[in-house]
């Protein structure tokens, strides 16, 4: 029992807590990035400009960032 409580006071618990939050937020960010990318497509369709492909690419970049965050959260922590 003492070992169980000791775990909650240990650095290992803090690391696990930090990691769980980081992964959770990274997954949420991934969902957000997908929504933004989809909405950018709709916005581009509503108003077409010559910079449309660049704007879409930058929005899509967020999905890559989100995946990067998930990988970083899982491996660096």
């Amino acid at each position, binding site marked *: 029992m003492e070992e169980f409580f000791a775990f909650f006071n240990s650095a290992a618990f803090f*690391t696990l807590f*930090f990691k769980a939050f*980081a992964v959770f*937020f*990274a997954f949420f*960010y991934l969902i*957000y*990035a997908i*929504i*933004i990318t989809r*909405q*950018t497509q709709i*916005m581009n*369709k*509503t*108003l*077409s*400009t*010559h910079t449309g492909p660049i*704007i879409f690419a*930058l*929005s899509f970049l*967020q999905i890559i*960032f*989100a995946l*990067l*965050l998930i990988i*970083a*959260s899982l491996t*660096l*922590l």
Partner: protein
Amino acid sequence: MADITKPSHNISHSFNILPDVSFETQGPTETVYLVLRKHPITQIWWILNAILLPVVGLYVGNTFLPQFFTPGQLLTFNLFLIIFTFSYAWINFLLWYFTVGIITNERAVDLDFYNVLYKEFTATTIKQISEITTKIGGFIGSLFNYGTVFVKTQGFEQNMEFDLVPYPSEVVRVINDLQNQT
């Protein structure tokens, strides 16, 4: 005075004459004469936030936090901070870029994106416009020459407004010119 026979734009692309753009409900004979966005000075707060947030965050993160966190945790924290700041700036840019007022030879169109998930599209024919009012408010508005153009229509048609656009009096002049042409 803006010449509406030649394509031109200001440095921030907030006042574009004969731009190379098209919109969803554009008719085959419709020519876009003017595309208006909010004056960039009105976007200064999110731009400042986007600059200050990573600077302050990285400074605080790398000055005070190393005693509490491991290098891996700090690196992850910094990554989150930079990427979230990019997203914050990007979403604000998108809202600014796609919230436009469009004047064509046939219609005046107001396209508003209040957030990424909600858009409002208002349009009226140039002929139906009965009254145009401009409002330039405050020291900053006068200094940078931007204001809101209110376009009122006849009867029960929807009124529209182009918020905080540059050169509001030029916008009125262009609409009046187009009204005289039709």
